[in-house]
């Protein structure tokens, strides 16, 4: 805090005059606390903001009382801190330590309660101390002009120019320019270093694991990959899912087996799909997707096209799919077209078919799932 010279050039204690300095320092003499005898009456009525320093106006008895109150509060704080330590050492670790909800609750209550009591009692004590017992008087200090005076500025400007002159930077443009040239790529270097933070997007955002799963299934001579229930990994038959108004979250079969463990979540994050049984008479398949559903059983990407929350809230009466994050609403009967909210595009639809009575997907999504991005097109 060496920046303080200018501001506090003159000492500002209430009792001392300042050492005179140039310009405006004459009035540095501080007003405020002449002899208490003369000021007392004035102070009493003159309290614009006199939250402290009333000590002198209190008689000995009330000061004693205030002192006792403060001391009591400090004792309370002491007791609470001791209780905190005592509880921690004596009780919180009993029966093999604190484990589980019930013990955590008890420990939180006692540790937090005693801690809060200790702090608050101490805070109240100090506050009363300041308000009732401190005898400091309000004082007045000069506010200084922050800017330097003309002379100083001029002197500095001269010093600065002199230095520049002496260094030769103004006289030797070659040095100046090559120095700038040398510095410029140095600034870019850290950016280059950040390149390996992650891979380039390439085609990553355009495919999901459904594509790979379908490819594997086809190589095994099947028509497509089965849909399994997220959480139980049970493949679904058409007959299993026959109740109109049904809804369930599904994934492609085989994610757990065929994907490295640390990538499962990442693949699921894109492949997660919502399977809905829309009453067939209400279902209007989109052009070119007439055979993508099985009697009204239809699958849409669960990743919202807005910013990627799972759009999972299906109302079987209105056939709306709602994203609980930002309330984008899609119509499940009409190719998941947007009917309300900030999302701009329908949820991608997964082509479904039947094989051996099981619901299968016959290809990947035909468009990128999830939020829009620049290269999406």
């Amino acid at each position: 805090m060496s920046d303080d010279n200018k501001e506090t050039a003159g000492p500002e204690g209430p009792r001392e005059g300042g050492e005179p300095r140039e310009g405006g320092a004459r009035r540095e003499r501080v007003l405020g606390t002449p002899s208490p005898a003369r000021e007392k009456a004035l102070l009493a009525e003159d309290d614009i903001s006199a939250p402290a320093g009333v000590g002198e106006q209190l008689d000995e008895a009330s000061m004693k009382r205030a002192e006792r109150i403060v001391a009591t509060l400090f004792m309370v704080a002491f007791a609470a801190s001791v209780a905190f330590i005592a509880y921690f050492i004596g009780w919180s670790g009993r029966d093999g330590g604190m484990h589980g909800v019930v013990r955590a609750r008890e420990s939180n209550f006692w540790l937090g309660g005693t801690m809060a009591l200790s702090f608050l009692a101490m805070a109240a004590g100090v506050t009363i101390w300041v308000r009732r017992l401190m005898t400091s008087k309000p004082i007045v200090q000069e506010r200084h002009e922050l800017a330097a005076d003309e002379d100083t500025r001029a002197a500095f400007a001269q010093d600065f120019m002199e230095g520049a002159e002496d260094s030769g930077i103004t006289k030797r443009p070659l040095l100046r320019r090559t120095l700038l040239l040398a510095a410029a790529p140095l600034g870019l270097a850290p950016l280059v270093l950040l390149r390996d933070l992650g891979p380039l997007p390439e085609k990553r955002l355009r495919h999901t694991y459904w594509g790979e799963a379908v490819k594997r299934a086809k190589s095994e001579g099947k028509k497509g990959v089965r849909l399994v229930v997220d959480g139980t990994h049970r493949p679904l038959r058409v007959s299993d899912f026959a109740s109109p108004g049904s809804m369930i979250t599904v994934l492609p079969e085989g994610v757990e087996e065929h994907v490295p463990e640390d990538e499962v979540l990442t693949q699921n994050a894109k492949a997660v799909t919502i399977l809905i049984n829309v009453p067939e008479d209400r279902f209007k398949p989109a052009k070119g997707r007439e055979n993508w559903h099985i009697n009204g059983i239809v699958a849409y990407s669960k990743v919202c096209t807005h910013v990627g929350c799972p759009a999972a809230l299906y109302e079987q009466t209105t056939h709306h799919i709602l994203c609980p994050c930002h309330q984008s609403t899609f119509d499940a009967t009409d190719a998941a077209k947007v009917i309300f909210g900030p999302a701009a595009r329908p949820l991608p639809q997964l082509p479904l078919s039947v094989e051996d009575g099981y619901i299968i997907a016959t290809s990947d999504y035909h468009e990128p799932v999830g939020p829009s991005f620049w290269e999406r097109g």
Partner: protein
Amino acid sequence: MSDTTAPKAIEGTLGFIDERLGSTTFFRRNVKKVFPDHWSFMLGEIALYSFVILLLTGTFLTLWFNPSMKEVVYDGSYTKLQGVKMSEAYASTLRISFDVRGGLLMRQIHHWAAILFMASILAHMLRVFFTGAYRKPRELNWIIGINMFMLGMLEGLFGYSLPDDLLSGTGLRITQGVLESIPLVGAYGYMFLFGGEFPGQDIIPRLYMLHILLIPGLILGLVTAHMMIMWHQKHTAMPVKNQTEKKVYGYPFYPVFMAKTGAYFLFVFGVVALLGAFAQINPIWLFGPYDPGAISSGSQPDWYMGPLEGALRIMPNWEISAWGHTVSFNVLIPAAVPLGIIFGGAMAWPFIEAWVTGDKRQHHVNTRPRNAPVRTATGMAAVTFYGLLWLAGANDVLAERFHVSLFATTWFFRVTVILGPILAFIVTKRICLGLQRKDADVIGHGVESGVIMMSPDGRFSERHEAPREEEKIVLLSKENARPEAPARDARGIPAPGAKGPIGHLRSRLNRAWTFDDVPVEEHGHGEHEAIESGSDSEQVKR
């Protein structure tokens, strides 16, 4: 106070430091530094002390937290999640909560302190704005403050994302979606931040580094700068008796202010501990581990991200797809524009105001909000805008609690977010001018005393008394608007500041700023009788 020397221990220590650093000169100059008193001056201190609490509790949490996304099967003491697959980050947070003694308390205190940190910065900013404390010479500190709030938002977002629970994972998913939508570089930014596709394995360790090292470091630096500038410039004062532009009146730093701020430090600690002990926050064990296919209704961010969330919710679905590229205005506009207006506007405001009013002086005494109606009204418009976006971020909770249609709440906010600020501006300005008129009345006609007098001819009238000295000083602190020099003088030569379109704009704005100002003057056209009758209550002035 005695004139004897300090006790030996202190004397010795001070001497030791002084001989090496020359510190006594500094101490001597600052030990009695004056601090003006007002309750609202302590709002910023809440932020300072919450930050200290955050550093302390945060350090404690790092001792057990494991920022890893490696999948493990939980077998800890929270029975409901036993056998569930989760990341190590989530498992270690459960461990802190249920197996580390005092861990839950520290977690809760940490989170409550974060909420208070951000809330108190905002409250402090509002105080500074409405009292005009940001004016020259304090613009830099104002800008530093806004930057700290923005860093705080990032810090908070990264912090509550660390446990890798379902709620915060949803927040990260949204962050990813917003990042991805940035034109040209979005997909690259996404890949680089997440080290591949969402969620990947890298994001939690990276956020952890940012959360515990980089951003707190930056905030710490800014806090230091903020405090040093404040100390150097001296605190502003309220426009009350004894406070002038030249002199600051108040209590000395040592011992009064030190004790007060110490007490307040303890209060902040106490209140945060109270909340940590008795109000549950961020119960991640109820949210479950992050799972990209799962979601909960009422998924909200912490309050300071609320306006962003609200903007995302009420934005219409504008998106352009052309020439093989997609631009998502439905994401970009809400992510950048509202807070851009608020924070960018706030940072530019001191300079805009100085330009419009032509006021290049230094100000150390605050303005009463009513005495700067345009400023106050603009502030209230911004508060309304922010507040409505904030509420819009909780529209599903509002719809659920009050059983109104979800879409109706969206439409309500779409309309009010535009109209509300305008209305707030008009209403606030009217109220300010009304209050000015009242002040002018009090100064001109005196205060109604409640004493009814009968005049010799039998008429009754209420006696008006001159306001008390303190009150009068407060009222007269208003700086009445002076009519600006006309844009053209008598000979038709334009004034230097009013040339060109910019100059025209400036003088128009200036007129808008001042035209309806109500002068508050002591020697107005008042009833002299009333003032005279009150003269007996004139106080002895120093």
